[in-house]
């Protein structure tokens, strides 16, 4: 029976100390009237930016409450309405956290209670900007119950590349390919690709192309070359060293149209656009400081839309990746037709047998966390995730390049030279895609060595050897050490 006694003594001691403390701290003018007091459980309050943080205060003033004021971060004090003359009152003060505040930013709220005897007491609460949302399981974000995500322009451009690819497929099958048709589709003449798209759109691929590629007529030259080669293909001319024409892919029996150096137009153009438009836009536009840097507007919504400019820019970067909204690692085989272009190729290298590269999940998480961080104005996380995106998206291109180098080696080995020209064209275009990141780990010199020498001396696939392919592979694995463990399984 000792404990209850001790407990009583303990409790009494606490009250005694508190009483002493209150006396010592109060602004006692010595008239003998008890000073006012503020008690509250809310010393530390957290809420999302733009929302109200509620601080509950219990006021008491034996001589009657005169006034209550609050000063934020030492600013001008403002009055809070009270019941003048009451001896006790419960007050809830709602502080609206500035919408522009960043995650973790703190505000000091100093409350001052004055009683009718002009005695005062102070109470300080700290309000911290917390998260508005947690990172969602899927890439879905709402504001006021409506979706705040839109990337229709990106979907249009991905659709355009699909339809360009299908025109090029005609060339692979031996049909004539019109240069003008390709130019019209590229520039989206008349909003319907000169009548060649199955849909209309006011977007285009050409004005989103990597500027130096535009300067070099990168795609225009390929269109002209492809169209010219298709006249050979149309005559059934088999390609050979120095002659453009058709090559049979042994696995399917289908033909591909290649240039005089053995490069397959369809791959160079389709994957070329994946690099020069899609990755270029992600890397040099939407993930750049100009669009998702800390200074970009992230409070006011775009006129007539449900998103801030910064939110929308990240969504546009996401749209160029265009995965299913619940994309992850590993991705079920029965849903493989739901990814396309870059998300499709991420999946190609995602779940390799000897330990996954797991790029689907890494990239998906980075996009989701970056987007949630933008909603929360969590600039640190947003910037970390942008770095992650630069790194992982680049890794996908490098991994897919190694994948096709391996494919080329095994095709060569199996005597399937038609397959080898196809896979080498893929490898070339994925190496090319590495050019577009401003943060790339590989150098332009290394890329030139891979694309113009290792993949066949003088940029001619007919000159490619296993030694060259292995040299390119070694370079990539050295620059991207994450590939080392899976380099032969990709």
């Amino acid at each position, binding site marked *: 029976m000792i404990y209850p006694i001790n407990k009583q003594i303990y409790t009494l001691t606490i009250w005694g100390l508190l009483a002493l403390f209150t006396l010592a701290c109060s602004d006692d003018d010595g008239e003998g009237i008890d000073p006012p007091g503020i008690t509250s459980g809310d010393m530390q309050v957290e809420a999302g930016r733009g929302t109200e943080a509620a601080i509950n205060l219990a006021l008491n003033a034996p001589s009657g409450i005169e006034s209550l004021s609050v000063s934020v971060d030492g600013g001008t004090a403002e009055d809070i309405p009270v019941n003048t003359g009451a001896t006790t009152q419960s007050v809830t003060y709602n502080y609206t956290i500035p919408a522009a505040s960043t995650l973790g930013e703190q505000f000091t709220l100093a409350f001052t209670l004055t009683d009718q005897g002009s005695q005062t007491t102070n109470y300080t609460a700290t309000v911290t900007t917390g998260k508005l949302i947690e990172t969602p399981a899927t890439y879905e974000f709402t504001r006021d119950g409506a979706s705040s995500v839109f990337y229709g322009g990106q979907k249009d451009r991905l659709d355009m590349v699909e339809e360009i690819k299908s025109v090029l497929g005609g060339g692979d099958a031996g049909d004539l390919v019109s240069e003008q048709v390709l130019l019209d589709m590229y520039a989206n003449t008349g909003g319907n690709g000169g009548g060649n798209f199955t849909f209309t759109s006011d977007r285009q691929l050409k004005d989103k192309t990597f500027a130096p590629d535009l300067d070099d007529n990168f795609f225009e030259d390929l269109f002209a070359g492809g169209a010219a080669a298709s006249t050979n293909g149309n005559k059934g001319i088999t390609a050979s*060293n120095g002659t453009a024409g058709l090559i049979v892919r042994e*696995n*399917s029996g289908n033909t591909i149209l290649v240039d005089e150096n*053995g490069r397959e137009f369809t791959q160079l153009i389709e994957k070329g656009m994946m690099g020069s438009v899609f990755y270029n836009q992600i890397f040099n536009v939407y993930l750049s400081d100009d669009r998702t840097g800390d200074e970009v507007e992230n409070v006011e919504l775009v006129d007539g839309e449900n998103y801030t400019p910064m939110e929308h820019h990240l969504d546009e970067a996401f749209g160029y990746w265009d995965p299913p909204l619940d994309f992850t690692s590993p991705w079920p085989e029965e849903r493989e037709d739901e990814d396309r272009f870059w998300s499709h190729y991420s999946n*190609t290298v995602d779940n390799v*047998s*000897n330990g996954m590269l797991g790029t689907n999940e890494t990239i998906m998480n980075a996009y989701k966390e970056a987007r949630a961080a933008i909603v929360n104005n969590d600039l640190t996380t947003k910037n970390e995730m942008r770095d992650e995106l630069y790194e992982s998206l680049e890794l996908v291109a490098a991994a897919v390049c190694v994948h096709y180098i391996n*494919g080329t*080696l*095994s095709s*060569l*080995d*199996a*005597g399937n*030279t038609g397959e*080898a*020209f196809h896979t080498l064209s893929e490898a070339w275009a994925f190496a090319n895609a590495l050019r577009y990141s401003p943060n790339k780990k590989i150098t332009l010199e290394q890329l030139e060595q891979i694309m113009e020498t290792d993949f*066949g*001396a003088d940029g*001619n*696939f*007919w*000159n*490619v*050897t*296993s*030694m060259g392919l*292995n040299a390119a592979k070694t370079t990539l694995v050295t620059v991207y050490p994450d590939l080392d463990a899976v380099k*032969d*399984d990709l």
Partner: protein
Amino acid sequence: MNIKYLQYIAICIGLTVVVFSCSSGDDDTGGQTPPEFDRAAMLANYADNLILPAYSDLQVEVDQMAADATAFESEPTAANLETLQNALKSVRLSWQDANFYQFGPAETVTLRASLNTYPTDTDKIESNIENGGYTLGSIDNIAAGGLPALDYLIHGAEVTTEQIIAAFTTDPGASERMTYLVDNVAFVKSRVDDVVNSWDPAGDDYRGTFLSEGNGGTGVGSSISLLVNAMILHYERFMRDGKIGIPAGVRSAGVPRPTATEAFYGGYSAELAVANITGYKRLVIGGSGSGLDDYLEFMESDELSNDIQDGLDQSINDAGQLTDPLSENIENDNDGVIAVFTSLQEVLVLIKVDMTSVLGITITFQDNDGD
């Protein structure tokens, strides 16, 4: 003690035994599960008693051919030519035991495509000799190098020994032709040396990788998966089709292609085919050690194992009926050649479908991205 009490005790003991035996079965699986087939021992047998000796034998024969080519270059006599021709044949026979293992180092240097792409492109060879500036091993020259190119160079098409020697000594472009011969021998040697060094435990030690615990399973990329996929790809595309089917016209609407035989100019393609099928059976049974046949029998598929071995014996026997030059056999009695194709086809199904199913191995070749 009354009887009921004894019964009670007996029941308790009985229950205890049941519970005990159940729990021991659950907790201590080590002693209870059926024993696993010792794949590691089988793989070690393949590495040490089949693969490494096959490459080593090939290297010995290639070195001999290189020496004989050097002798022919310095003294282009009829005797030295014959010695070189025999050396080439020894290399090609030796290749029949080394050509199954197109994974790892062999795939890395594209050994098969480098050494044995045929029919050889004689136009390309002649243009290379005339123009120079060729890179052996490039796609462009994939059908203009290796053993079939040497076959063409030192046997020639319907020419006498004197004419062959003249082509290397007195005809226009003779020295360039000799250079092309020597370059090709060096090319073959460099590829074979690369593969031998890569497998060598004292070199890159791919043997260690092949036998590592991490590659000891049956999944995609495991050593047994690589081996089985390579051997099935070889069977289908390079033994059944390459040596027999394609020359017999089964891939060209029945129109025979006698010049597509493996050693068209030397005229010993049937001998190579028999050697290859014989080597294949040795591969299946793991020589005198633990092999795929034992693995199948362990998996209670004795009948399948026997059927595969009997089928291969039948194919060896059928191929033994072929006569060299195989190109003439095709022209005179193509039905006999097609019979060998059919015989090989029967075994393929057993290996590719049934064997892989029993062993749980996924066929990974003909991997097509579909775009």
